[in-house]
């Protein structure tokens, strides 16, 4: 059974006539890694925004656990149901890395007893040591900020993790580590991982590769690992 389903979703930005998404229908299951590929401007990030509950589609429906996103508390959905890794990181820049993670856990009302310790362990998992974790985000490199973004997305143990070019600023070794985490999250922890990417290496880990073109989505490839 799909954890997330898009049913005939169309979308166009205010003040424009051209639809970015045209009747997109897709299903996403727990325990699988999905990658979405496509040219720039093809609607990949728009689709992620809609899936993330940051925006609402004008036509069609997006169902999370069979519930229409339009009808549920989307703040709650963003806080607990989904973890988003933004291409531009979108961290609180004047807070430290660990504070970003703890804040995310607080917003999601995480029941973790020692949030700070858990935040450190998450950061360590994505390759951020304790010293770096205590630095303000502005003092971190792009790659480090990307990893903090990944750790933040995992901090509240969401059902769905979506990532927009998550490894774009990472070196090969770290990229491999991060991809291993994504694979583990899907295959071991039963999460649904959806990644927008241009990278072949990222697509290689996907169970399903989806392609977007001219606002329409199609399955490009199923892969067995």
């Amino acid at each position, binding site marked *: 059974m799909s954890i997330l389903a898009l049913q005939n979703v169309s979308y166009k930005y205010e003040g424009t006539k051209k639809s970015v998404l045209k009747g997109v229908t897709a299903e996403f299951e727990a325990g699988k890694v999905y990658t979405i590929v496509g040219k720039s401007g093809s609607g990949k990030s728009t689709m992620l925004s809609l899936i993330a509950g*940051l925006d609402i589609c004008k036509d069609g429906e997006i169902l999370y656990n069979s519930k229409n996103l339009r009808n549920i508390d989307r703040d709650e959905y963003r*806080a607990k149901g989904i973890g988003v890794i933004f291409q531009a990181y*979108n961290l609180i820049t004047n*807070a430290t890395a660990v504070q970003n993670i703890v804040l995310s856990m607080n*917003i999601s009302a995480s029941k973790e007893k020692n949030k700070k310790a858990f935040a450190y362990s998450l950061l360590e998992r994505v390759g951020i040591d304790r010293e770096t974790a205590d630095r303000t985000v502005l003092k971190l490199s792009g790659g480090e900020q990307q990893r903090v973004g990944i750790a*933040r997305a995992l901090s509240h143990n969401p059902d769905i993790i979506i990532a927009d070019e998550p490894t774009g600023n990472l070196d090969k070794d770290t990229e491999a580590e991060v991809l291993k985490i994504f694979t583990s999250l899907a295959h071991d922890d039963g999460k649904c991982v959806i990644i927008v990417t241009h990278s072949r290496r990222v697509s290689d880990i996907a169970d399903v590769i989806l392609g977007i073109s001219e606002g329409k989505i199609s399955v490009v490839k199923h892969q067995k690992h």
Partner: protein
Amino acid sequence: MYIFENAFRNVLRNKGRNTLVGAIILAVIVTTVIALMISTTASGIIDDYKGRFSSEVQIKPNMQKVRDEAMKNSTNGMVRMTMPTLSAEEYIAYGESEYLAGSLYTASAGVVSDNLTSIDGELGGGNGVMITRMGGMPGEENGVQPKEFMMSLQGNKFSEFEDGTRALSSGEMPDAIDECLVSSELAELNNIKIGDTFTFSGEVSNLKEGIVQPTSYTLTVVGTYYDLTEEYGTAAQQNAYTNRRNEILTTYDTVAQEFVAGMNGIRIEGAFYLKEPGMLDAFTSELRNKGLAEVFDATTDTATYEKIVGPVEGLKGISVTFMIVVLVFGGIIIALLSSIAIRERKYEIGVLRAMGMKKLKVALGLWTEMIIVTCACLVIGLGIGSAAAQPVTNTLLEGQIQAAEQAQVQSQSPYGGMGGMMMGSGGGMLSGTANTNAEPLSELDVSLDLNTTLEITGIALSLATLAALISISRITKYEPIKILMERN
């Protein structure tokens, strides 16, 4: 809880912006503290004096009307001006009014004693009866020569004991009828001891009718008093009768027991205390209905009140006006700063909203930040304001006193116009502004009380809430995706 922790961290993270906002809030709070301290203290003083001067009504003869009446009744070129009096019965009748909170009666009478030597007795005696022939000398009437007295009995006149110019030196205050206090000087001169009894004689008379009736009082000395009042006070003549050391203080009933209606010699006065200062007109109207003659006026001491309290009222006005101006401008500046600050924090808000933080919690966080800054400013502002309030008050009050003095000098000048109004006002001896020797209040000890602190706290929190509301109103218009897209 995390909202508070996050807000506290944000305050520390954004030092520059919060210092700027804090400086404005601090300036507003300091000004408000000073203004409210002055205003509260001044209000207390104004209310107190208003209560004292505007609530106490005295019924006094209007000398202009008495003179006019005497001139009208003159048949042989002789103008007889007899000070009209009210009987004890009239005073009591007037005191029974729904407009009054209470009444205080006093009585006085001239007396002599065969057993006591008066202070300044060599200056002779006097009396309270005034007979004037146009261009002539005081003299007898209908063959009756008014008696001269060497002392006076003062019934229920103890106000100097309250203001400290008289104090009990031995014994106790008179409480029962026929008990009295004598001055320590008179006691020393006559070797009076507590428990001694003396007989005093006086008279009541109606010179017009040629009636004279002797009065007698047998009083027991129950105490002596120190006297720091001016020996002759405002008396026009200096003699034993007008010397205040010869005043024998007793109860109202003691003096009034010899009162005879229609006869002069025992002067009874009443002070009435209105429930509200604004009830004077209604009370006066009631007095007229009860038969108070037109030669009497019911007056309050507004001139003294204005002279004493005028500068304080001016000071209060300045402080309140200044506070309002500062609050309005401060509020506008804080609102503008908040508006700018929230634009700077648009991205942060977008991130928080994208992470799932509800609008209400974002707003609560912003409000908490503003409250933290305001509370810090409040603590500092209360300290600075309290320290600065007294010097500021002194400076402002000095300016107000000088302005009042200048205004008075101008009003007394030949071209000021007020001099002529004194006689023509018909409002009695206290109608004009230049008629009182009272000194304006030259000191105002301001202090910070709990109510003022609460008011300031309320104002500060309102300012913080105003600033937060500006921010919150903007947040409601922000959608996280738009903010993040703008940023990205």
